[in-house]
């Protein structure tokens, strides 16, 4: 029971009809994932990520080696009852509606009617599909199906969550939400195995990662250690005068180090969320998923008791006290007030985990360097995408974000 997941020279070879060995999908894999850890399995397409998961879950049998999941065999229902699994695509029964889908999976776990009903409603709220809960999931868009898929993986309040490409097809808010959720679960002592090639997602949430190629681990370790550029430092300040900047430059140059000064960019994610929240504020109708920042209360309810909303927002609450009124309504609050102040508070909640200073208790603080490098990467690609029509907006928003940043810093 030392590790949540442990594999011993796990090997999976796909043979053809005649038994000739064709593909080494997983090759001598030794993986150790600790309890209460967010572990990212990375790799290009066809590197054996999904195959590894399938072997771990007993959907494929290993050619060689073995794996131990939660201290037992994954074909044991007792172990299965503690696992939540989101496959690479949401494989759903098209003819069931969202509520029935969750109900079906709830029954498979043998949950009582009351618990089931409570969790289903909480999950539907959380993934923002309550309004379309009675539509057959066959009519859902990919992202909506993904949300239901995520909800079904959570219905048993799993100890181990295995997510295969959880954010594909999701809008940025959904992505943000999943990342928040993962952090939340980790905070509650759950283990998460994340499988993805969307590096940004992995970077944001994972404690440790392993990079697979050709079924073999090419690199593994702590995200922080792997990525930290120990030969660089970054200083983030509030709005300061040019004179001060010059003085700082002077100090740096005295140490014979290079120094560049720019205004930090908003991440596109932040910007996007801001825009959508503004639209939600105007109560615009959507036939799609309603993005909320909620997380099912049964998932977040730790030992401490509290109001639903406390739990809903407990993760992203920033230190200087966003735990205030706006978030205390059941829906995302903007409808309540048209002012911009609560809006920003909501935003800060949405974006909190990306802020330089993490909330207390989040297992892994994010390295500042991460933020920068990511921003730069985003800038280079995204600039081209957004330059033309958002350049002016960005300028306008920069002021806003400064204010927000200053508040948090």
């Amino acid at each position: 029971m030392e590790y949540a997941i442990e594999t011993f020279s796990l090997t999976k070879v796909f043979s053809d009809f005649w038994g000739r060995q064709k593909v080494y999908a997983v090759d001598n894999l030794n993986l150790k994932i600790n309890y209460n850890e967010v572990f990212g399995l990375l790799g290009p397409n066809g590197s054996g990520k999904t195959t590894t998961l399938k072997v771990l879950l007993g959907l494929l049998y290993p050619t060689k080696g073995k794996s131990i999941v939660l201290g037992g065999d994954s074909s044991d229902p007792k172990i299965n009852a503690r696992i939540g699994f989101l496959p690479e695509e949401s494989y759903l029964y098209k003819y069931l509606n969202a509520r029935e889908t969750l109900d079906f999976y709830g029954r498979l776990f043998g949950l009582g009617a009351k618990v089931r009903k409570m969790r289903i409603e909480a999950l539907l709220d959380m993934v923002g599909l309550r309004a379309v809960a009675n539509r057959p999931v066959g009519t859902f868009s990919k992202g909506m199906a993904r949300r239901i898929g995520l909800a079904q993986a959570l219905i048993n309040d799993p100890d181990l969550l295995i997510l295969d490409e959880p954010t594909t097809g999701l809008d940025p808010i959904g992505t943000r939400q999943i990342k928040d959720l993962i952090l939340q679960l980790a905070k509650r002592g759950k283990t998460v195995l994340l499988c993805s090639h969307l590096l940004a997602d992995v970077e944001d949430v994972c404690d440790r990662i392993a990079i697979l190629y050709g079924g073999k681990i090419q690199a593994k370790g702590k995200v922080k250690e792997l990525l930290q550029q120990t030969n660089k430092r970054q200083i983030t300040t509030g709005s300061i005068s040019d004179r001060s900047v010059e003085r700082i430059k002077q100090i740096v140059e005295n140490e014979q180090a290079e120094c560049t000064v720019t205004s930090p960019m908003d991440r596109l994610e932040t910007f996007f969320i801001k825009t959508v929240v503004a639209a939600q504020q105007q109560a615009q109708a959507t036939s799609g998923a309603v993005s909320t920042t909620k997380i099912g209360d049964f998932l977040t309810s730790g030992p401490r008791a509290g109001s639903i909303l406390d739990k809903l927002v407990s993760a992203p609450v920033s230190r200087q006290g966003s735990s205030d009124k706006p978030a205390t309504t059941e829906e995302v609050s903007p409808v309540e007030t048209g002012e911009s102040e609560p809006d920003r508070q909501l935003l800060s909640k949405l974006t909190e985990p990306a802020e330089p200073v993490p909330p207390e208790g989040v297992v892994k603080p994010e390295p500042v360097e991460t933020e920068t490098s990511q921003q730069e990467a985003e800038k280079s690609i995204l600039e081209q995408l957004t330059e033309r029509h958002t350049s002016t907006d960005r300028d306008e928003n920069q002021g806003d974000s400064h204010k927000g940043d200053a508040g948090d810093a």
Partner: protein
Amino acid sequence: MRSIWAVATNTLKQALRMKIAVVFVVLLLVLLPAMAISMVGDGTLKGRMQTFISYGLSLTSFLLCLLTILASTYSLTSEFEQKQIYTVLTKPVRRFELLLGKVLGVILLDIGLLGLFSALIYGITIYTPRFVKAGEAELLQVQNEFFTARAGLIPAKADVGDEVEKTYERLERTGQLPPGVTDSKIGRENYKNALASQIELGKRAAAPGHELVWEFNNVKPIDPNESLFVRFKYDVSMNPPDLHVYGKWLVGDIRQAGSRVGTPVYPFERRDLIRTFYEIEVPADAVAEDGYLAVGFFNDPRFNNTVVIFPLEDGLEVLYKADSFTANFFRGVLLVFFRLVLLACLGIFASSFLSMPVAILLCLIVFFTGTISGFIIESFDYLSKNASSLCSYTIGPIIRLLPQFDKFNPTKFLLGGRLLSWSVVAKVAGLMIFVKSAILLLLALVIFSYREIARITV
């Protein structure tokens, strides 16, 4: 158990919402009433009822069989093709629970639909006589011969073994055996078999001036005030000019002849067409208390000058009412139900290792061979007489494992108002459900539990 039930209800929803069932339901809801109106049979009320119940029940059974095959194979193969099974089997669900859930779901569907349509057929059958103009005689005939469940007794087969041996020895001694018979064992057997049927038939033939007597025990009509029926068919050695036979019949307890008569013995004199079935209605009090009944036939030499033969298989039979039509109909529906259960298990078995089209094909092949299993078994037996024992020990049992839908066809019983006894139903249930379905399910479980779920087979 909970997960079995969850899978079962999900399977049921699938069959209903994917509109697999809808096509069949609509078809039957339209066809059954249409058949009731348009089918007149041979013009008599009885013929009309017979036609309707036979076609109605056969059609229902056939369509539900197809539906069962489709629903069961689709429900499991689609799990693989659309991969929902990944999310199901990673939940605390054992594989056998998934399979049983699927079977149960299809069976639930069958129970619902079979219940609906058999109720419809039953209702139409019961109410047809009220809406059709028919004379008293026709109504009585329908009451006696259709709305009933009559048990039939056929005379015990005479044991002719000794006689065959003696005759054979005599022929051999006197050298009258046809050439070639003594050459091989098979030749001898064949000749003896021919002799046996010849002698048996001799015991069922009456030359002019001679009589035949059949004795029955265990005749148990449910009501002594009802009638029992002697059903017979004449065959003749030489066609009489008017194609009729004049027969004198006696039905009753002939053991008491001479002494004081306790139960009545009924005489009949009739003139009937040859090679046609007739029924003599006899009051049921002719049966002695111990269930004994004798039927005597006298070939009257004043009118006939031909040997009268009662064919071996269906020449003579005594029928009496043993149960009600309703109970009989219910048991008939049960037979259809067993068939559906077997097919559901077959479908699940096939899809435990085959893809959808192949699984359906396999099921259809088994289904159709099952409907002509009698023919297949007979021809195999005939052919395998000369085949090696290896052949008859391998293919033989396999052929017998095929479902025998034609042998247990309920319409056969309902058409003639024949009793379909609980013992027959139990026998069929035992064979179809507790042997064949169980074997199929076991095989499916074994295959399925070793199958790599996420393995894509192309």
